[in-house]
């Protein structure tokens, strides 16, 4: 009973598990915006854009704000 889980994990120590857990959460809660993550957002934005005229307009209004972020993600350095 109490040792079942030790068996299940085999050679892995708590440290391995805790490292994995911490890595999972730091990826999940990361506020950074690398290129890969931005690319992942594209399909969602496209879907929203295709939804209708009003959504397209709102999204276009956002474009000027997005451009510097894109640049930053591609070149990998902060501006200004």
């Amino acid at each position, binding site marked *: *009973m*109490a040792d*079942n*889980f*030790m068996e*299940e*994990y085999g050679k*892995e*120590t*708590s*440290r391995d*598990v*805790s490292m*994995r*857990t*911490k890595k*999972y*959460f*730091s990826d*999940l*809660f990361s506020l950074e915006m690398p290129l890969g993550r931005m690319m*992942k*957002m594209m*399909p*969602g*934005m496209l*879907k*929203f854009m295709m*939804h*209708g005229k*009003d*959504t397209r307009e709102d999204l276009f209004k956002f474009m000027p704000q997005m451009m510097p972020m894109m640049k930053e993600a591609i070149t990998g350095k902060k501006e200004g």
Partner: protein
Amino acid sequence: MLEQVKDWDDDFYETFKPIAMGFVNEAEKCLQCGKCTGQCPAAAVTPSYNPRKIIRDLVYGNVKRVLSSVELWQCFFCSGCYSVCPMDINFPFFVFMFRLAAMNEGYGWEDVKQLEGYAEKSYLKDGITVSTFERNPFVMDNIGDISKIRVEAGLPPERTVSPRGIAEINMISDLSGMTAFMKQIGGVELLDCTTCTDEQAKRCKTKPMPSKVGKIKTHHRYYNYGEPGGKKNAEAR
């Protein structure tokens, strides 16, 4: 037992705290007073469930024991432990965070799978988490058409969320990774005793199934905090 003691990751909690964005707080102050367990509705029906022990294990870094336990999935989320806690430890948030961590380790997907419909079919499609759908025949006969009752009460026959609103939450879902997360849940297949093959049944009898189901490798969970207390229904699933 000595190996288990050695196995603890001492600075787990300390290093985890800044990563967890303030959801996981104050546990280092835990007095181990047990007030949380004393008033806990889940502990009342499953004696092996014990918030105090879970907090202790998290602070000491006994991560394996917590993540692989059934007990982690028995919390009622009632916040009663927080309301009595002298040190203001918001334990439900711990459960929430460590359930996610447990899912990352491959535990508990079968529980989550059962709730998938609420997110996919109701929340993202209609914008409303609980739909008018009734499963219980007695309730269906007795209440009948809910839209009729709504009209009598002076409300529109159906509560609807505007298409724009639904498009917006769908975009939030896509952009924040919720859609991808739900795809993972969609990859889980639940094994059912009625559809089980002989091969699977044989394995099931000799050993609990840490089976590879769907795309997610699901693991069997254990009662790591003691016997389930003679509750005949409280078997590990």
